[in-house]
């Protein structure tokens, strides 16, 4: 079974904003997300995948940055959460340095809900 992506409504809203306001940053972050997906498929253990554009946060949340997308890009983080059991990569939200702490709080709440759903 291949890895698939699952979005949240917040991701959809954020993506709309980035499509209009910061397309270059969005393209760079999505390119790195694509690279991460390929690495998940290739890795003997998906949870040990590492790379310069991947930043581990708390609760298994991972931030994918815009590195490699060119110079003069705003620092951007796409927050994801991988579920190896269902081979699902949850796209939680995307933001910049200014929204970082709020974004991480949202991600932690969402992951908690996901884990509670799983436990039920």
């Amino acid at each position, binding site marked *: 079974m291949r890895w*698939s992506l699952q979005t949240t409504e917040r991701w959809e809203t954020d993506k709309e904003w980035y499509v209009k306001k910061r397309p270059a940053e969005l393209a760079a972050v999505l390119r790195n997300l694509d690279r991460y997906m390929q690495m998940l498929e290739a890795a003997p253990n998906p949870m040990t995948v590492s790379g310069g554009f991947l930043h581990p946060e708390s609760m298994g949340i991972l931030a994918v940055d815009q590195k490699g997308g060119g110079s003069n890009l705003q620092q951007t983080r796409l927050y994801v959460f991988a579920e190896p059991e269902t081979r699902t990569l949850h796209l939680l939200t995307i933001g910049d340095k200014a929204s970082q702490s709020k974004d991480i709080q949202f991600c932690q709440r969402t992951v908690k809900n996901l884990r509670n759903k799983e436990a039920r």
Partner: protein
Amino acid sequence: MKTHNNTQNTTRRFESVRELLTRPEDKAVRDQFDALTAQTRLVQELTLMRTRAGLSQAQLAAKMGCTQGRISKIESSLDADLTIGIVQAYARATFSDMKIWFLKPSKQVARSGARGTLVSKKPHTPMRAPKKTGLKATASARKSAKTAAKRRVVSV
């Protein structure tokens, strides 16, 4: 700055990243995404070689005799920044065989100009079938000469 009125979790499922960019209004992002992908094919292949071998950047750096920072820089660079030496070093460290293929670009790729780094810029001069000398070229020899002209492989 982005704002949020609603943070309910209505979810959608996608099979690939590119599928996220299929609407007409996503075209600008999609074009940039495709351009970045074309510029980093070989770099991504190196990253996947490391990942398949189950190595972290630090472990690979130890095998290659360089710093983890150097590996990080290589893996976030463009194909155009790579050298054959780097590719060879990755191949050695991950116990991979290395072959470089020069292919004629397909019509679609040639039109878009998105050749990547694995394809040579100029099409090759086709190799001619052996001239008739005293020896007759067999049909299979002529066929293999044509195939070789289309696809040349260099083992390093």
